[in-house]
């Protein structure tokens, strides 16, 4: 039996050797697919973090703008009375 296996191997050694790169190619492509998927997930994760930062900055800017506008409107309504000495140096 062993001799038959050895004979089979000797006759078809080239074919078996050529199959190994094909199998390695299959495994390699699977690894590349996994890497592409993980890099895609990382890109989404990084984008989410950056997006949250930008959203926070946008919210802060809008809040500050609204506050400044409210303060300016309130100050414009509140008018101090003018006395006769408005043009004297204090």
């Amino acid at each position, binding site marked *: 039996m062993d001799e038959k296996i050895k004979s089979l191997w000797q006759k078809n050694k080239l074919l078996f050797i050529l199959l190994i790169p094909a199998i390695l190619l299959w495994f390699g492509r699977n690894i590349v697919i996994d890497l592409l998927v993980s890099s*895609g997930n990382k890109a989404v994760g990084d984008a989410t973090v950056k997006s949250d930062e930008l959203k926070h900055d946008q919210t802060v800017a809008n809040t500050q703008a609204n506050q400044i506008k409210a303060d300016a409107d309130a*100050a414009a309504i509140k008018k101090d009375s003018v006395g*006769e000495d408005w043009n004297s140096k204090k």
Partner: protein
Amino acid sequence: MKKLISILSIALLTQSVAFGDCDFSKIVKNADSTFTYSKELHICVGEMKRDLELSNAKLDSYNKVIELKDLALTKADARADLWMNTGFKLQDRMNAVDELQMKNQWLMFGLGVIFTSLSVYGAGQLR
């Protein structure tokens, strides 16, 4: 957007501030080149000055508001660009994954045929 905010600001400012109805026709020029005018006119001018200062302060504040709103818009645009570019990157990766998976499926099919053939041949040889 910036022009719209500026126009709105100017419209709001002119509506909220009245620059008085001071009657300057009653001012009398004296012989010594000084001027005489009523107490009411004096107060009226003071109120004008006060209103002008308030308007200027309000204008400065509104300019600051415009800057901040512009900044907020810039950040919003940056977010939109970020997700658009991320979408493009993901699309490229998805296309590459699809292509590799298709090639691997064909390779697996071919290897399956070869291994099956080899198994049948090898079983025949070993008999």
